[in-house]
Every structure is written in C-alpha cells, then in structure tokens.
C-alpha cells in the first residue's frame, strides 16, 4: 500500500481532509485515542489497520504495533497491556474472533483498566471469508459492548468512542465493521491526536483476574450485567444511538445499511421521506432498551435494515413485544438473509412496507464473460509444490486423484481450481493436519496428505502436528513455506529476523520446531527444483508415521518486488505444436492461447520461474534475459 502522498495519516494536523479507506481511518483513530499497544493477526477485510500503522511508522510515535502469531495470542497481549492500564487494540477478521473466543469471553468477567478495543471485520457477501458469520451474536454471547460505524469517518471516531466506553465501563469494547465500511474509501476529517497511554499500574486482585471456577465468578457475572445496564445509558449519553424525522413508519438501520437508507430515501422522494422516522443504532450490544421503547414504541411498523442475520430484528421484537408495534425485516423476507444489502434492496423493502409499487429487486443479468476464479499467481511456488505432490505420489505407485489432500487457509487453497484441482478440503486455520489425522483414525487405509502454509502452521497447525505425532498417525504433511503471510497482503511471520517496524526478532524456524516435536522424517526442498521435489515426495510418502516436507521458496510476488524479474519466458511459435502441455500442467495465468491456436506468454506478468518450459515437450519455450 502506497502512502497517501502529502497526507501523513498519523501526523497530519486536526482538520485535515483526506480520502481514506475505512481501515486507514481506523488507524488514524488509534492516534486520536491514545492507544499505545496494537496487535492482531492479518485477515481480510481487517488487515489495513495495522498495515497503515506500519506504513506511517506508528512505532516512532511510541506505539507498539506488531502482528502476533494468532488472534488469541494477539488478544491476550492486548488484554495484558490493558489490565496494566495501557490503552490497546487488537484487530482480526470474523473467524479470528472464534479463535480468540476463549480469552475474550473470560475478559468480560475480569474487565480492563486501560481502554481495550477489539476490532472485528465481518464480511457480508462473503467476499473473502469462509462464512457469513454475524459477530454481533458473539458480543451478546460474551456480554461485551459492541459499536458499529456507518462509514470510514465514523469508524475513525468510533475508535475514540470505544476507548471512552471501555474505560467508563471497565470492559473490552468490540468495534465491529463490515467489508463496505472497512474497504470503502470515504472523505475523512482528522481530529486531535492524543499521547499514547502506557502502563499505569497493576494491582493484584484475584477476584477480578483468577477465573479458576471460583465462587467469585458469580459476583463477576453480576458485575458484568450491571455494567451492561450502564452501557445502555452511555449509548444514549454519548450519542451512539440517534433518530431523525417523524411518522408512524419507522426504519432502524445499522452500519452501511444506514448509508444505503439515506440514498434510498432520497431516490424515493420527499413524499416517502416525510412519512418515515429513522433510528440509527451505532451501539448494537447491549440494545438500549428504554431508548428503543421511547423512540419506536409509538411506531405502527418498524422496518429493520441489517446484514448477515436478523440480530437487530429479533432483539427489537423482544424489546417491543408488549407494544402494538410490528417489527419486520429479514425474518419476513423483506431484505435478503444471504449476501450483502444494496440500496436497491433497501428501496424495495421500503416500498413494500409503505404499500407502494416497486417492491422487488431484479436478479442481475446472466454473466456473458468466461469466469475468472482467482488463480495462483505466475511463478507461485505453491503451483510447483502441488505438481511435485501429484507426480511424487504417482511415482510412488499411488493414483494421485485417489489420495485425499487436506488443504488449509491461505493462497494455496486457490489450487482447488483446474487444472491443479489439488485439494479436497479447506476448513479452518490449522485443520488440514488434524482432519487428515481424523480420516486415518476413522479407518481410511490409503495415504493422506495435509498441505499447510508457513503462517497457518505457526497460527494453529503446530498443535495439530503435535497431536498427529503423539498418536503416531501415518500422514504426509507438506508445509508450503513462502516466508510471508501472502494472501492478506504480505505480512511478517515468526520466521522473520526483523519485523515491519524494524524490531529485531528471534526467528522461529519451522524445521527446528518440527524436529523438536518429534517428527523423524523431515525434508526441506525448494519446489522450484521441481524434479528434486518430486523425488522427495516419492520418498517421504512411503515412510511410516508423520513425515514433513517443507517446500521452501519465497512468495513469487514478493520475490519479484524485492529482487526484480531478471528473465522471462517466451514461446517460439514455430516450435509450439498447440499440445497445451504447459497450460494443462501449470494453469499459469501468464499463459494464454493466441488466435493462431498457439500458446503465448504475457511477459509483463511472467516472473521467470520456468515451470512452463520444464513441461514443454518441444522446447518451444525459451528464457529471455531482461535488459
């Protein structure tokens, strides 16, 4: 990500106007809230908060900002900082909240001293997430306050609001957004910066901080419920809920749906807008019940606009159950319960509630263009690793298409598409190894393979590997080590000797870790040496117990950026017989079929890995040095 030129997001004075991504605005919010510790694990659409703090060197402003090995460790670091009085923030995507669930839920009983913001980005669509998880239920389950901004500028302000709320209630506060806030660029006006608030003291208080099944947990539960009642009052005092207009038709909105609503009301004209009262819930947990009864109790109908699940609708139905108000929304099919909301959906729902025509959204026209599922990049070493796996298994006497390959979360999951069609599952962080072990334990007799990336291995694969080793499961584990967290935009891993902030770090080496766990057969090979990698797979798969093959080559995009591309490959059309071997083996997106039916290479996309040339039976692909 490039810097925003003349505007330094962290240092520009109050009043500066800039076009910022929601996540960049949140990074500015960190500066305006006195937060001194920021940690997290990358996950789209949440990663740019920490990436922005890195890009603008927040560490030079006295802020600790580093990625952690996974979300639960990240949260626990932020929590530890916070009970010592430091203001802290932890960032993650929605599934990361599941990983961090255990310590987050307990933190609701212990509470905080310094403000603690848990930034969680949901992904209606879903665009880049495994599920359409609605993290609002998580706030209710954990008993933590949650606020949800409508746009980038409000996201900036809500960081400050979350810190204030957190210190007033002594509870962690969840700042929840969605893709259309986190990854929307909006005009933002900067506020005042606040000095980072660091350690202010830590007193031993076992009733607060020891959760070992003690009777005092009941006292803390009662305390938490009291704090949540206070939160309902604070939501009103701090303007986190608001209403405008009047009428007996009411609309409740949250997040980006409020932006859609404003536009829909504009397009439907004054005759509609004048009949509608709009209530905005910036705080979605707890629901400020008294305010809701006061503002919405007199409405004939309440339309609730939200995404992912009818969380608000169900909550409002409960609060308003003894009134004559009819609450409706997703449960009644007025807005979609799958995918994201659009201004057209909102307009259609409004029309339907008001009894006007125009109550449906046309299905989008059929896509005439050939599909373009995201492929592995040109030169991606994972492509080589999957090819080595296929041919290695074949050379060992197995039918590669009959060997179950358990994938994991990361770029290599893109190997699911043709022609590689390399993985059978992709489930959750670290699950490749444990699910593969499960299949064996359940009675599967042939060889099984788990494929996991370096960062995912550190994140959650480590424990799975310990389990498999301990139970002596027959399993081939391929660790695709590209020395970076690639998919989320190139973040550091625990193998780095220096982090993004220049902090000197002790590299944790996968090979050493794997050996220390007790894996007897450990191989390290560069998958760019494809023939050697094939031999390694062939040998490894025959060994008993857990064997680990570390396929070690840097991410091709990163390597091209750091080292430059010194040579590319070119097809000699006279030699090309259109046999398509290069395309069918590699599926490299830099290859294409020209109008003469022969293959060509898009040289600006080629990184010079040479894999296509390796599989050309006619030597029709040649290496060309770049000037």
């Amino acid at each position: 990500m490039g810097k925003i030129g003349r505007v330094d997001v962290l240092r520009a004075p109050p009043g500066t106007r800039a076009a910022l991504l929601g996540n960049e605005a949140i990074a500015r919010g960190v500066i305006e809230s006195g937060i001194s510790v920021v940690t997290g694990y990358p996950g789209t659409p949440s990663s740019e908060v920490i990436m922005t703090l890195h890009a603008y060197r927040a560490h030079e402003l006295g802020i600790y900002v580093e990625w952690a090995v996974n979300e639960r460790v990240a949260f626990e670091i932020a929590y530890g900082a916070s009970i010592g009085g430091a203001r802290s923030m932890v960032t993650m995507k929605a599934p990361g909240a599941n990983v961090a669930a255990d310590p987050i839920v307990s933190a609701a009983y212990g509470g905080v001293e310094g403000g603690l913001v848990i930034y969680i980005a949901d992904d209606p669509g879903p665009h880049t997430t495994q599920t359409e998880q609605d993290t609002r239920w998580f706030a209710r389950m954990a008993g933590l306050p949650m606020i949800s901004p409508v746009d980038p500028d409000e996201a900036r302000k809500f960081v400050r609001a979350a810190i204030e709320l957190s210190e007033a209630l002594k509870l962690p506060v969840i700042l929840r957004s969605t893709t259309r806030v986190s990854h929307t660029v909006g005009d933002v006006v900067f506020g005042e910066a606040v000095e980072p608030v660091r350690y202010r003291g830590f007193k031993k208080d076992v009733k607060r901080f020891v959760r070992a099944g003690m009777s005092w947990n009941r006292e803390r539960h009662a305390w938490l419920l009291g704090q949540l009642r206070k939160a309902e009052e604070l939501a009103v005092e701090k303007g986190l809920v608001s209403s405008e207009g009047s009428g007996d038709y009411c609309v409740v909105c949250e997040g980006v749906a409020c932006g859609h609503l404003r536009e829909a009301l504009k397009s439907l004209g004054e005759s509609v807008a004048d009949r509608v009262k709009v209530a905005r819930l910036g705080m979605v947990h707890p629901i400020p019940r008294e305010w809701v009864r006061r503002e919405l109790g007199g409405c004939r109908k309440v339309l609730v606009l939200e995404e992912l699940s009818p969380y608000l609708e169900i909550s409002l139905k409960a609060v308003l159950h003894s009134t004559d108000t009819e609450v409706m929304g997703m449960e009644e099919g007025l807005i979609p319960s799958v995918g994201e909301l659009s201004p057209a959906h909102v307009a259609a729902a409004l029309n339907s509630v008001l009894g006007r025509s125009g109550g449906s959204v046309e299905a989008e026209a059929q896509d005439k263009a050939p599909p373009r599922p995201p492929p592995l990049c040109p030169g991606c070493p994972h492509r080589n690793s999957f090819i080595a796996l296929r041919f290695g298994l074949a050379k060992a006497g197995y039918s590669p298409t009959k060997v179950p390959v358990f994938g994991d979360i990361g770029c290599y999951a893109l190997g699911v598409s043709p022609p590689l069609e390399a993985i059978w599952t992709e489930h959750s962080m670290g699950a490749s190894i444990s699910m593969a072990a499960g299949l064996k334990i359940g009675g599967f007799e042939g060889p099984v393979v788990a494929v996991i990336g370096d960062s995912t291995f550190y994140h959650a694969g480590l424990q799975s590997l310990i389990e498999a080793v301990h139970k002596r499961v027959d399993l081939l584990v391929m660790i695709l080590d590209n020395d970076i967290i690639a998919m989320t935009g190139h973040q550091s891993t625990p193998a780095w000797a220096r982090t993004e902030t220049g902090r000197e770090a002790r590299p944790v080496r996968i090979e050493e870790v794997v050996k220390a766990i007790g894996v007897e057969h450990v191989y390290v090979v560069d998958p760019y040496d494809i023939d050697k990698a094939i031999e390694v797979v062939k040998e490894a798969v025959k060994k008993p117990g857990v064997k680990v093959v570390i396929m070690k080559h840097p991410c091709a995009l990163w390597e091209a950026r750091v080292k430059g591309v010194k040579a590319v490959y070119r097809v000699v059309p006279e030699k090309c017989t259109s046999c398509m071997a290069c395309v069918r083996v590699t599926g490299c997106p830099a290859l294409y079929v020209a109008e003469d039916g022969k293959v060509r290479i898009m040289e600006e996309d080629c990184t010079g890995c040479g894999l296509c040339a390796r599989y050309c039976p006619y030597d029709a692909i040649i290496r060309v040095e770049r000037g």
Partner: protein
Amino acid sequence: MAQKVLNILIASVGGQGGLTLSRVIAAAAVAEGLRVRTGETLGMAQRFGSVMSFVRVGEEVTSPLFGHGEADVFIGMELIEALRRIPYVRKGGVAVVALTLKPPVSSSLGIAPRPSKEELVKELRRALPSIRFVDAVEEAKKIGNYRAANMVLLGYVNGLVGMLKDESVEAGISAILRPKAVETSIRAYYRGKELAKE
C-alpha cells in the same frame, strides 16, 4: 461538477491497477471538496482475479454501492472484465475500455469460451453503441510506464465527461502513487485526455 452524484464503475483484472485508479479518483474528488464513497473488494482477487470497484462522487454520498444500469461512467481495463460488468452502465452512460485481453485460465484450458478481441469489441459495441476503445497499455508504454494505462483511461474519460478538474487529478495522483510513478502517471493522464479529442 453539478450537484448530482456521479456513479463510476471500474472493471479490471487484479494487478492491473483498477484499485489504484479508484483511489486516485477518490483523492481527486476530495481535493475538489467533494464527498466520495468507493466500494472495493480487496483480498482474494488481489492478483489475476476479477475486480470491480464502485466509485461515487458528489456533494452528498452515503452509500458505496449502486446497481445495474446506474453507472454514469464506466472504465474497463480489460475486455472480458468489461463485458462482465457492462450491464452496470446506464442508458446514455459513458464507457471507455482498454484494448487489453487477459484470458482467464479457464479459457486457456478450453473449459470456458475463448472470445477473441474482435468478438469482445463487437459484443461490447452491441451492448453500448457509444462505447470507446483505447489501446491504453500501448499509450502508457510510449510514456515509459506500462502500469499507467489506468491513468490513460482516466484522462480519456475525464476528457469526455469533465468530471474532475485537471489540478484535482494531479493532486490525486501525487497523493496515491509512489513518488517515482507520479510524473509518468500525470503525463499518461494528459495523453488520455488528448486521445479523447481525436
């Protein structure tokens, strides 16, 4: 610019600079004192996937999204992606598409159609007779920075529509692009503007 909101849709292949283009337009709009919302889907489609950016500029904008038939301005950085997204253009909308073809892997494998440049141009013309094509990559290469094809397209579109002042675009470019790419990008923008007049 008038009071209304301008809806801009950018269709591209990941890595072509479609997201950078949307950032430049957003920064230019803010430099002009306007409000802006973009809708991006970053992440999975970072490289070589299908990327679509919504950009909305005006005096009051609150939603980042719009639907089919609602784009006033359409910028296609690649022919197949342009065809995929062309239903977003409204009647009377302005569309400029680069004569760049990046077939997806599925086409090369023969499991999806493999339309030629000519077929795609024809199909796009049928969808929108007023559509304009420009060899943006070729023009950008002449300037010495093939990655500035996005700025050629921006210049071309702005030459037709006049949605942003030149100085705002220059401010947007220098706000978003790496310092060493600023000069060629600004030249690419003006080259695009010139081409629009031809």
